[in-house]
């Protein structure tokens, strides 16, 4: 019980802007170099060590950039929904700063997932775009991110902007299971799940670079969101005494 209380107090302290700014600086100082190291190993493994595919040839290597973009476009939306609940329901200011970071980097990754998907689809399917359930639901995710960011700019009052955008983010969460199950619920041109199965449908010689890419994207996304949230917290609290002491 004592450990849970300590863990709870450690987590609770993150909601203080001052503690958040101080702790996040330490975390993102570790996450940045780790992200570049993991991405570097993934890049070399994916381009030069993994064997080419029997059917797709070298083009299959687009998987190493497409899958992490697509996976984290959804993972960041989950983080956006959780942060939105934190800022709207529990009035945690730091959660709102984190939500803004998640929305920005999530929008970039969603656009990249669609673009790299088109660059993979053109040589393999003969087209870069079809109104397929998976592609269309991912496009809706991009509109949700852009809508969130647009709503924040539409209000001059910060509290109203937070509430309206948090509401959109929470309702938009319904798109996530649709994206995930779209390849099971409907007949789609997009392939079914490869990794999220009991026995992944990919050989380990091709799988391991993808694991490095995914780990690198995780560290990068965490570092980027923390960096953006630190900047947001600083701007919001620039007149507070602790800012002068810590910056």
């Amino acid at each position, binding site marked *: 019980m004592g450990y849970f209380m300590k863990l709870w107090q450690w987590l609770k302290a993150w909601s203080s802007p001052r503690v958040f700014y101080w702790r996040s600086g330490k975390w993102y100082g570790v996450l*940045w170099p780790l992200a570049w190291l993991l*991405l570097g190993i993934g890049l070399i493994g994916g381009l030069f060590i993994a064997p080419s595919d029997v059917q797709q040839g070298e083009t299959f*290597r687009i998987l190493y*950039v497409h899958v992490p973009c697509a996976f984290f476009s959804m993972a960041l939306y989950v983080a956006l929904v959780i942060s939105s609940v934190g800022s709207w329901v529990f009035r945690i200011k730091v959660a709102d700063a984190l939500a803004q970071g998640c929305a920005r980097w999530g929008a970039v990754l969603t656009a990249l997932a669609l673009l790299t998907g088109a660059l993979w689809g053109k*040589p393999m399917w003969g087209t870069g775009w079809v109104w397929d359930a998976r592609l269309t639901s991912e496009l809706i995710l991009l509109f949700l991110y852009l809508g969130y960011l647009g709503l924040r700019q539409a209000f001059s009052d910060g509290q109203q902007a937070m509430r309206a955008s948090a509401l959109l983010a929470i309702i938009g969460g319904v798109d996530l299971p649709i994206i995930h199950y779209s390849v099971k619920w409907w007949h789609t041109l997009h392939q079914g799940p490869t990794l999220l199965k009991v026995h992944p449908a990919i050989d380990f010689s091709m799988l391991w670079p993808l694991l490095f890419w995914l780990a690198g994207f995780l560290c990068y996304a965490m570092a980027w969101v923390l960096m*953006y949230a630190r900047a947001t917290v600083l701007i919001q609290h620039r007149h507070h005494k602790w800012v*002068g002491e810590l*910056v």
Partner: protein
Amino acid sequence: MINLGPFVGYLFASYGLVLGALLVGAFWGRMHLKRAQKLGRS
């Protein structure tokens, strides 16, 4: 090792896009934080 085939342009374009976005994102984020820190000091 990569064999340069007819579709290798798509491969390089996709890697260029993603790696470019990662680099620009890291640079822009760093500049954004530096600006905020400057504002905090002033």
